[in-house]
């Protein structure tokens, strides 16, 4: 699981592979639980207590409490699961995408209207480090 992967060179991207899936299983299954209205209510009522129901690591729980969207991905979260927290918060997919890129919602939406983030300069970590 620790071997370097060819896709690790893609900047700003976490590929949800076997290692991340194992690491993030309980974090993602917590997110999955938010599909039920009664669970959303329980989570909103007391987030910390609700998170204790799932055998997640303290770091994983903290990223949820902090709504640290990139942090969740780094600890094994998958975007289709973590976005369920966003839905629970009343945030759109585009709003959390903006947060993950460090932009404001308005700037991010404008970037998309302008044709999106170009692939040129965004293919490899080397391009980010030297760009």
């Amino acid at each position, binding site marked *: 699981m620790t071997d370097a992967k060819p896709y690790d060179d893609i900047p700003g991207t976490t590929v949800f592979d076997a290692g991340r899936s194992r690491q993030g299983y309980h974090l993602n299954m917590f997110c999955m639980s938010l*599909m039920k209205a009664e669970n959303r209510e329980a989570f909103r009522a007391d987030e910390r207590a609700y998170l204790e129901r799932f055998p997640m690591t303290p770091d994983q729980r903290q990223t949820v409490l902090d709504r640290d969207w*990139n942090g969740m991905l780094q600890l094994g979260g998958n*975007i289709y699961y973590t976005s369920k927290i966003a839905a629970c918060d009343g945030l759109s*997919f585009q709003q959390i995408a903006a947060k993950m890129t460090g932009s404001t919602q308005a700037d991010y939406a404008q970037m*998309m209207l302008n*044709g999106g*983030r*170009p692939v040129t300069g965004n293919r490899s970590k080397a391009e980010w480090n030297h760009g």
Partner: protein
Amino acid sequence: MAKIVAGVATSHVPAIGAALDNGKAGEPYWQPVFKGYEESKRWIAEQKPDVVILVYNDHASAFSLEIIPTFAIGCADSFEPADEGWGPRPVPVVQGHPDLAWHIAQSAILDEFDMTIINQMPVDHGLTVPLSLMFGQPDAWPCKVIPLAVNVVQYPPPTGNRCFNLGRAIRKAVESFDQDLKVVIFGTGGMSHQLQGPRAGLINREFDTAFLDNLTKDPQALARMPHLEYLREAGSEGIEMVMWLVMRGALNEAVEEIHRFYHVPASNTAVGHIILENR
């Protein structure tokens, strides 16, 4: 004999469904998206397929990390729209075609494609948004639908080549079914998009255009494309486009492009759409 006459590929962006369901289709942001499907709606109304085989992916709605089938075929009588966290989409219940679905499952398994058989499954935006784009907002969907769910959430998804060959196996299965049925196959998802991390918002128009071109010019080249190229060039969620290759594999070698539409953006995504008829 049943026969696949055409293939449709389209993005399945959830925001498109939400725009339609909330009466925003006429707003300046969404109007160009729906305009791109007007000709498609006329086309499919003329085609009148009996069955649509709809290749899509579930987005942690019916499946979670508990069970992750690579290829799953819906064999039930009907499929309810999924509650994805804000109530089910107000769209008709999807009526299946269990006879043909079971026939495809058996034929594909004996053809060495190890399908998961699904008898109970809600269907999320991955399946219902393409139906809305192609059929609008009817009281009932005008044809039967066989859901074919492909895992593209847990890496690795099946290869493009495997998807293409599954398409061939589906065609063989359909053609050995003893009822006269007109079948259209949909491949959905894509095009270039990345929903996660600091690189979110990636769009690659050049990649998408070449992909659309090669569906007619050189589908074998698309089938050989490694996952790394999708991830790097089309964004982490652009890898959904392997599902288009199931559709392409189910068609003749020679196809004619009937319609194409491409638009950026719908939320975070490049919307791509193509209709291919067998020649």
